[in-house]
């Protein structure tokens, strides 16, 4: 067995600020994950289909446009439609405090704002996958 955790990092929506997503992708790579980076302007359909083809364990969504309350539920719904309800969904970016709980209630495993340590993200992933943090 040579199990590697696979993570899709995607930027749904129309803002083109992908620095955060790239930094996270790089940090997760350095934590030993296989990160599939899909880039900017992804629709929920594209993200869910990529998650399916790549058979990822985790989908990380980077959203800075303020459209998270519209985009995140659609991604989660699409993943369910494709039979990927067990995928861990994480959200990063600029998310107002009052929206965080709503996102968690939708099934998002973690919401991360600016200044989050990579170790926090890794811990959330490992816990959600039921593994011991490395």
């Amino acid at each position, binding site marked *: *067995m040579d199990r590697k955790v696979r993570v899709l990092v995607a930027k749904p929506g129309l803002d083109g600020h992908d620095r955060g997503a790239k930094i996270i992708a790089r940090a997760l790579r350095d934590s030993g994950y296989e*990160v599939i980076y899909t*880039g900017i302007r992804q629709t929920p359909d594209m993200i869910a289909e990529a998650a*399916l*083809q790549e058979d990822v364990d985790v989908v990380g969504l980077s959203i800075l446009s303020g459209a998270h309350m519209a985009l995140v539920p659609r991604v989660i719904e699409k993943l369910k439609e*494709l039979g990927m309800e067990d995928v861990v969904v994480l959200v990063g970016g600029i998310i107002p405090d009052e929206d965080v709980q709503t996102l968690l209630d939708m099934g998002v495993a973690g919401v991360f704002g600016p200044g989050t340590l990579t170790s926090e993200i890794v811990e959330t992933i490992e816990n959600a996958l039921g593994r011991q943090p490395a």
Partner: protein
Amino acid sequence: MTNTDLTTVEGLTQALEAGNRRALARVISHIENNTDLALPLLAALYPRSGKAHIIGVTGAPGAGKSTLVNQLAGVYRQRNLTVGVIAIDPTSPFSGGALLGDRVRMRDLAGDPGVFIRSMATRGSLGGLAQATADVIMVLDAAGFDRIIIETVGVGQSEVEIASAAYTTLVVEAPGMGDEVQAIKAGILEIADIFAVNKADREGVDRTVMALKMMLNLGVPEKFQVMHHGRMLPVNLPETEKLPQGWTPPVLKTVAISGEGAEELTEAIENHRLYLEQSGGRILRDRLRAATELRMIMRDYLLETLLARTDAAVLEEMVEAVARREIDPYTAVRHFVNEKAV
């Protein structure tokens, strides 16, 4: 979405045959992770493979491989052929992680049910492919894709494994990456069935095309690769079974970002496919691949068997002894082979 059982070999293979993409993705993961289901899945699917045309795309980092694959797959889709893509990027030797970024350049293909893209990390393999590439190609083939395109990692000069995995190997070059001497060095240039000089809107493109054509005119090798590159595993064929001559690799100009030349490039790939089929070259390549594959699996199997019956403590002692230069590594190995082989 269905009540198909995607946890068993039977369920997975049936769903895969029915075109279930989730099943296909799961099967690939089992094989990549070498789970308990991997071998039974390979055994079940192998007889269904062998129909696809397999195209390797290789070249230096930044030459435009991903963008070109995006264009090629697009042309094939216009021709109503389905396309499986395997895009390989390197695993970090330090963290074991990988950043697989080829999908960024393939977004035109998103949402098309006739395309399936899978990114793979090399996981320690050095020949430009991932460990399980050959098996994943077979799975996509068994899943019924008409064309399978493999994009290697960005290569240097000697990562030529792709040539034994693909029927048609496309080497992507870009202007300004070397002179005539680079072009006659051994290595990846020798494995090309087709050359694409990408970024042909840039200065120096004619010089690159000229250098490649001159190299080709200097002589076509007398026999097709009978060595599995990088593995030192010669495959000896009787004189009569050498690959037929008669294919000179065309050198084509492309601008992958705009799609210029993609149609012509696809045409060249299809010509090569026909050439292989009509000349018997495809059958020969299949046989070469089978010979190589069997030897590699034997080697892996022998290694595992030998390690399994070797006392870990003794092995550790031997490692120390070799590191201290008390014994040379060859004699050390012979110790393990001979000790219990009788």
